């Protein structure tokens, strides 16, 4: 009997674990180590953050789902990996620390034959003074990155609405909280949901809404922007984004590295090297992401974290990490199999794998401060990669150690993204977009780097309906209800 251990039960890890359990059957064991008792459909946290959904609607208990799937669920967080075992045993293992009520802090070594690291991001609030610390979110801003954060964000948002109703003008500042952030899409959704809710509450004219982000142009989204076919033109996402911001009367600051947050004020540095300040009454700033800080040890107990993980804490996989400057980048730098180059039974998927380099062109201010988005790994690629990795491992377990690995390069894969711009069954809107491929390939698609036949975007109610249906569809799939395997990632 082989044992597959999956670290992290989020979008990528849950996909990998549930497919592996289905394909392996009861002859082999799948273990999931994840610290939360609940699964969270993170994209809908945006709606929790404006009071349009409850925490209960975007989360569910993992234990019964894993029991049904025959998955051994350990509510714990992984702390370290011993990929060579220890001196007395060659068997590799992970060291985990329980978070389960009643067993908190209990440590266990879990041996594995194959390991998937799908631990997602560490929300690195501590990287910006005042945004938070090593323990999480600070006191001056809000976040929608977890369901609990989103509940808190909504509480603060409702207070602002009350103040506006009493005649007090409010300033909203939404965007990224550091020069090296990703996930601009989530902030984009939140700012337009805020705007939509303020309109619904009848207080839009009492609000000044501003975007602040590390993108060098509006609509970069960490993917270097995209060109979409529209009215016979290939139109840049910059035009679409600027158009929407103008239409909804939302001002913007771009190319900004937020370097300090105080009560009611952020300090920032711009790409031209100038410094600025912006006041706010309500601010949601996405933190930069890092790896979750897993350590790795060799057989003799030596620290081999640098061998297994990149300096940002994400796990090294089959990517080209020595591509160098932007001019040398190629689509082939991006990983295909997500296998760790040193330990062939170890894989990383979703946000947990170390990308070879950003997708957007790196930029820095004259002071040397890097200010440009790091690469996003959104839900669809995270799910597809998780499934491909599970497929590879299952083949190796069932067909033999030399079974070929499955490939899922972000340079050959598209993504469908639906960015909510306001919730409402008849007055909601969302920007429905596809991008193909996620990582531009300027050799294959000269000029824009993407296939404009498969890269499109439009805003409207239809997008909102799709976003709402996807919410139910993905929760249905994650709960492993009838037909779940038919729902694509």
């Amino acid at each position: 009997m082989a044992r597959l251990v999956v670290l992290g039960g989020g979008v990528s890890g849950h996909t990998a674990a549930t497919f592996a359990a289905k394909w392996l059957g009861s002859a082999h064991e799948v273990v999931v180590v994840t610290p939360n008792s609940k699964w969270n459909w993170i994209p809908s946290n945006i709606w929790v953050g404006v009071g349009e959904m409850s925490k209960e609607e975007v989360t569910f208990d993992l234990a019964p789902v894993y029991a049904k799937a025959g998955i051994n669920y350990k509510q714990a967080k992984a702390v370290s990996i011993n990929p060579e075992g220890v001196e007395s045993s060659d068997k590799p293992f992970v060291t985990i620390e329980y978070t389960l009520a009643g067993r908190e802090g209990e440590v266990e070594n879990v041996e594995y034959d194959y390991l998937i690291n799908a631990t997602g991001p560490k929300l690195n609030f501590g990287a910006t003074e005042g945004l938070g610390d090593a323990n999480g979110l600070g006191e001056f801003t809000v976040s929608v990155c977890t369901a609990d954060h989103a509940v808190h964000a909504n509480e603060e948002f409702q207070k602002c609405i009350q103040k506006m109703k009493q005649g007090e003008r409010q300033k909203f500042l939404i965007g990224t909280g550091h020069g090296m952030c990703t996930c601009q899409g989530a902030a984009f959704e939140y700012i337009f949901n805020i705007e939509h809710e303020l309109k619904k509450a009848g207080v839009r004219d009492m609000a000044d809404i501003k975007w602040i982000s590390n993108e060098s142009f509006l609509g970069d989204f960490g993917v270097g922007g995209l060109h979409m076919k529209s009215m016979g033109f290939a139109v840049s996402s910059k035009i679409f984004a600027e158009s929407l911001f103008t239409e909804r009367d939302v001002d913007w600051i771009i190319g900004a590295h937020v370097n300090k947050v105080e009560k009611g004020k952020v300090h920032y540095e711009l790409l031209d090297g100038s410094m600025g300040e912006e006041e706010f009454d309500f601010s949601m700033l996405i933190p930069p992401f890092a790896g979750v800080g897993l350590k790795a040890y060799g057989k003799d107990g030596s620290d081999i974290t640098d061998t297994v993980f990149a300096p940002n804490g994400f796990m090294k996989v089959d990517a080209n990490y020595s591509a160098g400057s932007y001019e040398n980048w190629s689509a082939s730098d991006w990983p295909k199999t997500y296998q760790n180059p040193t330990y062939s039974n170890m894989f990383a998927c979703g946000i947990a794998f170390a990308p070879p380099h950003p997708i957007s062109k790196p930029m820095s201010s004259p002071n040397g401060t890097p200010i440009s988005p790091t690469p996003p790994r959104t839900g669809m690629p995270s799910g597809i990669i998780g499934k491909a990795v599970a497929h590879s491992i299952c083949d190796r377990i069932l067909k033999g150690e030399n079974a070929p690995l499955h490939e899922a390069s972000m340079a050959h894969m598209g993504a469908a993204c639906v960015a909510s711009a306001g919730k409402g069954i008849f007055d909601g809107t969302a920007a429905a977009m596809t991008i193909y491929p996620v990582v531009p390939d300027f050799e294959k698609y000269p000029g824009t780097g993407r296939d404009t036949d498969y890269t499109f975007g439009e805003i409207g109610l239809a997008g909102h309906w799709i976003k709402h249906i996807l919410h139910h569809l993905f929760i249905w799939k994650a709960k492993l209800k009838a037909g779940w395997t038919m729902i694509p990632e």
Partner: protein
Amino acid sequence: MEKKAEHNIKAYGKNFTTMTPGKFAIKLRTCKIWQFIRFIVINIKMLIVVRKSH
């Protein structure tokens, strides 16, 4: 009466060079019949990209 989107443009400000939708384009965004058609079209387009990516 709701003000036109173009009224939000600040002359020679950072949004001076963008395009803004007119009333008809904005109306279409929440027009149920048109959006039902777009719903079908977008779903087909997305399914094609999803198929190409798996």
